[in-house]
């Protein structure tokens, strides 16, 4: 099928996408790199001057950076842990025959369609609010002091909210994968004397590896840049307790108008993402090829 003519046509058809993505990657990123070496504040236009690596130094040296870095990793790791483990458990459950499978599936899927600003606001006000939230009502009903989630455990609360949004995604992918598992293989294992733990460890998990990889990859892409949930719930606070890297960059550049510092932070975020991406790509490269 690969004749010279079709090759030329193919190149023409790929090029718009490649050119656009290339421009999208190179132009703004180039500008960010350039800005990151300038002393540049939006409040003082026309005062730009060369700063060398100062911006990087100040960005990295601020205590907020270390906590933002740790928060970013905790957020990604925490949500991945909850959604993958929860997703596998839920997928195993929903794979069993029971009445009303369709309805339950529709209910489980639903959070995926809820936009981040809505889910954050709903959790913040209707559930975690220390006075009127449902959790507070429950606490009062059983005679416990209501807990102010967003002030005392802001990051954990945000992890919970984000995990709620992504659990359906993980469940759905893992359930689909589970349904393609060869039943005869499972029966053969049963005949061979494997109990359900053995079957899970030696058959189900290996079968799910590929889809777990997909879940981890896709979610990591989105989780590294969680922003809206933080903006509407805690504004990164209290202090910097729930500030992740994207939020820190946003605060520095658009709240403090420090373009230079924000750009340096942006570049650091890109480098961090690339380190993560490097490992992820190697992982999916291996798992998706076969």
């Amino acid at each position, binding site marked *: *099928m*690969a*004749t*010279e*003519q079709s090759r030329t046509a193919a190149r023409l058809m790929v090029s718009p996408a490649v050119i656009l993505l290339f421009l999208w990657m190179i132009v703004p990123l180039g500008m960010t790199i350039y800005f990151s070496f300038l002393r540049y504040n939006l409040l003082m236009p026309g005062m730009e001057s060369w700063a060398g690596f100062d911006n990087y130094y100040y960005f990295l040296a601020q205590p907020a950076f270390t906590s933002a870095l740790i928060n970013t990793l905790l957020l990604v790791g925490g949500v991945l842990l909850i959604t993958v483990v929860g997703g596998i458990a839920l997928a195993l459950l929903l794979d069993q025959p029971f009445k009303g499978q369709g309805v339950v599936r529709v209910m489980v899927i639903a959070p995926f369609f809820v936009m981040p600003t809505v889910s954050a606001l709903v959790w913040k006000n209707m559930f975690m609010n220390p006075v009127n939230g449902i959790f507070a009502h429950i606490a009062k009903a059983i005679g416990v002091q209501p807990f102010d989630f967003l002030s005392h455990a802001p990051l954990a609360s945000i992890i919970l909210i984000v995990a709620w949004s992504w659990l359906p995604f993980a469940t759905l992918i893992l359930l689909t994968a589970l349904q393609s598992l060869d039943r005869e293989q499972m029966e053969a294992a049963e005949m061979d004397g494997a109990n359900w733990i053995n079957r899970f460890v030696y058959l189900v998990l290996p079968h799910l590896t590929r889809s777990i990889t997909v879940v981890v990859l896709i979610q990591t892409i989105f989780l590294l840049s969680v922003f809206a949930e933080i903006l509407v719930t805690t504004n990164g606070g209290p202090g910097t307790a729930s500030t992740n890297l994207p939020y820190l960059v946003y605060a520095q550049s658009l709240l403090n108008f420090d373009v230079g510092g924000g750009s340096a932070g942006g570049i650091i975020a890109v480098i961090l993402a690339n380190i993560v991406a490097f490992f992820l790509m190697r992982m999916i490269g291996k798992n998706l090829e076969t």
Partner: protein
Amino acid sequence: MGQISLSSVTKTFGDVTVIPPLDLQINDGEFVVFVGPSGCGKSTLLRLIAGLEDISSGQIMIDGKDATDAAPAERRLAMVFQSYALYPHMSVRKNIAFPLKMAKIPQAEQDKKVENAARILNLTNYLDRRPGQLSGGQRQRVAIGRAIVREPAAFLFDEPLSNLDASLRVTMRQEISELHQSLKTTMIYVTHDQVEAMTMADKIVVLNAGNIEQVGSPLELYHHPRNLFVAGFIGSPKMNFVTGAEAARHGCATLGVRPEHLEVTADGPWQGVIGLAEHLGSDTFLKVQVEGVGDLTVRVAGEQGLHHGQTIRLTPPADKLYRFDKGGLAIGGAA
């Protein structure tokens, strides 16, 4: 018309040579079968003729015109694919009419040709179904119908029967042969099954690793295989090959005896023990361990009550021995 000639055609993928320089002449109206083990390059050769792959060097002539650089559609060839490659979203009628539609043939004429093809192939009642609702044999017929309506210079078949079950395969084999007799159009047919090759072909091309081992009519290949490869490939069960002292006694490096030519006799020179007897009713296949000769397969007509463990004597047919030299080439054809 459907005359195809290949001269010095080669095909390489990167550093790998799939087809070394190859010449082949296919005459108008001939039924030519490319046969060989999997990976021998027979499908690649067919795709080169179809124009689905570019040839690396050489020339392809169709009806005296240079078609080397012609697009597949310009070559006036029709192809039936192994997977049938029916368009799943179109009805049978639309599938068959598709090449006509592409050629911008008027609707009325399209309808007539489709109806006609459907009648020939017994598809009239299925014209409005989708391919997914048809059985394997019916799909096969739709694929052939799609090829027929174009009235091509030649039909190309790429292992068309390999996805059918055994009994259907026999039926379709006969249908394709009958189709060839009524259309008298050139057909090129690729298969790895030597039975299909023997039963259908006017001319068999035996391929091995991209090389043509031998070209000839089925019986020519059966009686006069040019070398060990062809001798081993054509005929079922496979020809027995004997080497060593016994072969040397006949003045060759390898001695070939077809199972159906060995006779069970009371005083044959070869004595052996039956290791396995397969009783088919019409025939009996015996695996015999012969001292000083080796394992031989013997085909005995009918049922003669032979069984495992029995000692028998065999007579090799003096006039039906095949002798091959050290390089595997036949010495003077059948002795």
